[in-house]
């Protein structure tokens, strides 16, 4: 009998047996701040059930959640987003180091977040690969030298690109014809959207500008001010031509853009692609020949979280790597840092499609219960290894991040 079931039984059936202490004890609440990508109701319910705690989700757009967490660490216990948050949060001293010894599955986490490479010899993308910002160094800075203190718990991750509606745009060939440059193609004027997050959108835009041959970057993961100026002057001109239909701030919004025909092509996250397909829009998640923009999911512990709250925060982190959540988010195209624990909880068809890049042997459902993969389909970009071997750049807080913020503002209001 599970602890939770026992409590249920005693509370409902054997009143005399139930101890006042259990009743009186207030169920602790964990406050999780993040994005819609991982803050999903099914996960919350499952975690609450499994852990016997209350969980509060506060999902926001990626820029908003970062801004809020950086400026107000008292507002959350756990922060879930992408590795580009780390630079900001760590500098803002909004989060505290996580003790790897308290992470039950730390050793099971594969080498990608620890080394930056999915397999030895794979291309290391530009920008902040997760290994560079994972370990808390002796001087309090973040680096790749392994220590027992980490700035975040590595969990979900993926490579991103853009999605396009093949009803409107002819399907391209992965890694060969599909290109970031499509985002700036005049043919799609008025039907293009970017994500409103400078640490992400700026790379989509930069890859597009570079792919279209409009400019080059010395280091796309750490642009100079001049490069930023040039990039934004290109983008602003495009915007003024009416090239962009919008800048989405959350995944549901990106789905809405696509399903309501507001856009034909846009920066997308994998769940957005699954949801759009579930709603009947044939969206292809591109595998650009220039490589992906990769990201690593970070789960960070608030600087202000201590005591009991900190305990349940660790419980929740361990729950995430215990298999179920990994299997769940696999259905929206995300990988988990310890896939082997999720594999038994997935059907072999699912595993083969999502991780192995094999054709689906049956229709596969997404996290929303709708069929998002038809039998015979092959995952865009192939297997986990193939996809993570083609990284152009990681989501990054660049040195000139502060400068890029101003430029971003100019772009939004151009």
């Amino acid at each position, binding site marked *: 009998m599970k602890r939770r079931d026992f409590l249920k039984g005693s509370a409902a059936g054997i009143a005399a047996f139930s101890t006042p202490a259990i009743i009186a004890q207030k169920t602790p609440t964990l406050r999780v701040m993040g994005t819609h990508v991982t803050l999903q109701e099914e996960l919350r319910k499952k975690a609450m059930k499994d852990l016997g705690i209350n969980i509060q989700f506060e999902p*926001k*757009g990626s*820029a*908003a959640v*970062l*801004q*809020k967490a*950086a*400026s*107000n660490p008292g507002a959350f216990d756990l922060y879930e987003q992408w590795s580009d948050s780390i630079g*900001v949060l760590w*500098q*803002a*001293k909004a989060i505290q180091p996580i003790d790897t010894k308290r992470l039950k599955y730390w050793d099971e986490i594969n080498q990608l977040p620890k080394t930056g490479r999915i397999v030895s010899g794979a291309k290391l993308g530009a920008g902040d690969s997760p290994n560079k910002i994972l370990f808390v160094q002796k001087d309090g800075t973040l680096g790749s030298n392994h220590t027992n203190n980490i700035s975040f718990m590595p969990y979900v991750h993926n490579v991103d690109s853009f999605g396009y509606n093949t009803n409107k745009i002819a399907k391209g060939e992965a890694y060969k014809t599909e290109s970031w440059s499509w985002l700036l193609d005049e043919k799609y004027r008025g039907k293009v959207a970017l994500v*409103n*997050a*400078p640490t992400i959108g700026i790379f989509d835009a930069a890859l597009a500008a570079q792919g279209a041959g409009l400019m080059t970057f010395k280091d796309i993961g750490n642009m100079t*001010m001049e490069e930023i100026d040039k990039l934004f002057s290109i983008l602003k001109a495009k915007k003024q031509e009416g090239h962009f*239909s*919008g*800048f*989405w*701030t959350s995944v549901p*919004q990106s789905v809405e853009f696509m399903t309501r025909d507001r856009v034909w092509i846009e920066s997308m996250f994998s769940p957005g692609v699954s949801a759009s397909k579930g709603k009947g829009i044939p969206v292809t998640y591109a595998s650009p020949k220039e490589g992906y923009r990769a990201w690593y999911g970070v789960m960070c512990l608030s600087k202000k979280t201590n005591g009991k709250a900190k305990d349940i925060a660790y419980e929740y982190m361990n729950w995430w790597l215990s298999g179920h959540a990994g299997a769940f988010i696999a259905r929206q195209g995300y990988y988990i840092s310890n896939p082997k624990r999720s594999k038994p909880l997935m059907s072999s068809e699912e595993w083969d499609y999502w991780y192995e890049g094999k054709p689906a042997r049956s229709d596969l459902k997404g996290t929303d219960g709708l069929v998002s993969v038809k039998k015979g389909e092959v995952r865009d970009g192939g297997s986990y290894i193939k996809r993570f071997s083609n990284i152009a750049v990681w989501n990054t807080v660049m*040195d*000139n*991040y*502060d*400068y890029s*913020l*101003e430029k*971003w*503002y100019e772009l*939004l*209001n151009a």
Partner: protein
Amino acid sequence: MLKKKLNSIPIKKKVAGILALFVFLFLGTFFSVSAILSSLENKLINLSDLHTLETSVFELNKDISEIQRLVLAYGRTGSEAIYRKLTFRHKSLQDRLLNLKKQDDFKEIEADISSLLAVTKRYEEDIVSLKELREKKDTSIGIGLPSAFEELEKTLTSTRLPERLKIRTQESIYRMRFYAKSFIAHKNFKSKRAFNVLSREVLKTLKKNGDDQLRDALKTYIEIFDQAIIANRNYITLVNVVMSGEATEFSNLSQKLNQKVALLTENTNNALQKKITDNQNVFYIAFLILLPIIFITIYFSNQTVTNSLKDIADTFESFLKGDFSQEVPERDRTDEIGKLANAAEEFKKLNKQLKNESKRAQGLAQTKSDFLANMSHEIRTPMNGIMGMVEHMLDTDLNKEQKEMLDIISSSGNSLTTILNDILDLSKIESGKMIFEKEPISLKKLVEEVEFLFQEKAKSKGVRLSSFIEKDITFNFFYGDLTRIKQILINLLSNAIKFTNKGSIELHIAGGPLKDGLSPLTFTVKDTGIGIPKDKQELIFAKFSQSDASTTRKFGGTGLGLAISKKLAELMGSQLLLESDLGKGANFSFTLLVQKAEVEKKAEDKKLLHFGKLGDSKNCLIVEDNEINVKVLTKRLDKLGLCYEVVNNGQEALDKEKEKNFDLIFMDLQMPVMDGLTAAKSLRDRGCETPIIAMTANVQESDQKMCKEAGMEYFIGKPIKRELLEDLLEYILIENKVS
């Protein structure tokens, strides 16, 4: 076939069926039209709401632009007033959205409003953060950083470092301050990198020289610079990315909403148009259905009801005109019209019967009338003889006994004549043959005459008889039927004298105010006689009735007088009223409404008439076959001093008149060879203008009329009353005709 079937359905059912059909159609039309109208109304309301909505949505865009402007202005100035304005503006935007959401008329845009609301909700938090982060940034850059530098400088001043190193360090921290300021202002990472390089160098140097105090101060400065960067970054991210992103999204959403509302308005317009068309169509359809039904109904009701009714009505009309030759139509029908037709058939049969009966009754009445006329004639003629002879005999020398006997004969004869007249009058009244004359009557003369008639009798009974005409009666002559008024008065006075043994009898005539141009004349006969008990009063007006059976034995009379008087008064538009009680006398009165008559004043006092010398020159022709009558008349004329010749029939009269001119002709009606009417007509036809007096026992109006038509302008009934004859002769020979 159909018609036959229709004719077998009762009209009640047909009418009910048609009414039900109309009601059904009417209700159907009514409900569908009212449904359409109410939905039309809804659409109209919807449309007006949509226009309001359009305005509101348009305002949304303005609001968000203004809010963004305020965010920028606040960023530049940090003005509290602007911040208040910003929160106020945001609140009003949110309220506007909440209001829109509350209007549940527009389900289509609910999701859009919710999206907008979600944006403003997030934005609300951002506004709170905005102030917080700006203050943090300002404090950190404007106060924290300079004071940390001041602290650093102060520590440097008091340091025990060698002077050269001190100066070099000072130079370094000034450069650091420059890089810090530069980075914060321009965000160029080169400045930050230079700051970092420099700070690491200085820290290293200080570590080497063991100046921990200065080193800590520098570390604090670096940390505060990092904090300032974060504060600045947080603030800028909030404004530049988060809030700006939300505002952009808000604009996008509201623009989309705008388009949607415009589309909604258009759709509603179209729907409205469609509803109007639907409405028209319902009318057209109802019209198209109703029109033929109305026509069919009219046609069939014409065919089966109206026409049939008209046919039956026409048949009835001809029946009423007495033409029973027509066949009653539609008798084979089983509905109401069939019943009506059969009723008409019955009516026809009954009417035929009735007509026969009526003919028979008319024949009987005629027989009765003829009988009465004949009776009258047959009795009057010998009565004329008897009374005439009695009168003549009374003028001869008689002994007392003879005179007494003759008086009784005369009185009995008069009674008999009265009875005869009464019976005739009553039969005339009852058969509606009574005709009233309209001739000028002298009231004074009338009163005097009737009073005179009874004066002697009253005197003989020792009763005082008087008459009185009220002074308010300003006229003397009025139009009326003298004979009939006189008849009533004579009847009343005769009764009064009959039933009054002592005291007085008064004939009183009262006037009154003019009424519709007519003057009332109330004739009252008042006596102090035996009176009539209340319970018998009604009875005395009945025919052949007196208040008591013994009365007849005691006073005689036919009992017809009052009945006749009452009827006459009624026929003259009056009522004979009685006020009386046993032993208290009686008041009989009647009021006539009369028209004044303008008549030349005549000599009203009448002397005993004698033509004297004039009589010699006046020659009369008497045409009469009855010897007694001739004798009676010649005696009268002798007394009046008139000359005469006698012939026995009309033919002889014609011959005689040819030979000789006469001043006056007395013409009997019923004569052998040639009757009086024929003779008179022949005389007139051949131009004879001599006045002719018709003499007959046939005193009915019809006889008088026939006489007039035959050219006999005067008429005298038999038995001939001396007074009447004298009046007539005076009128014809002296006053009027013969000069």
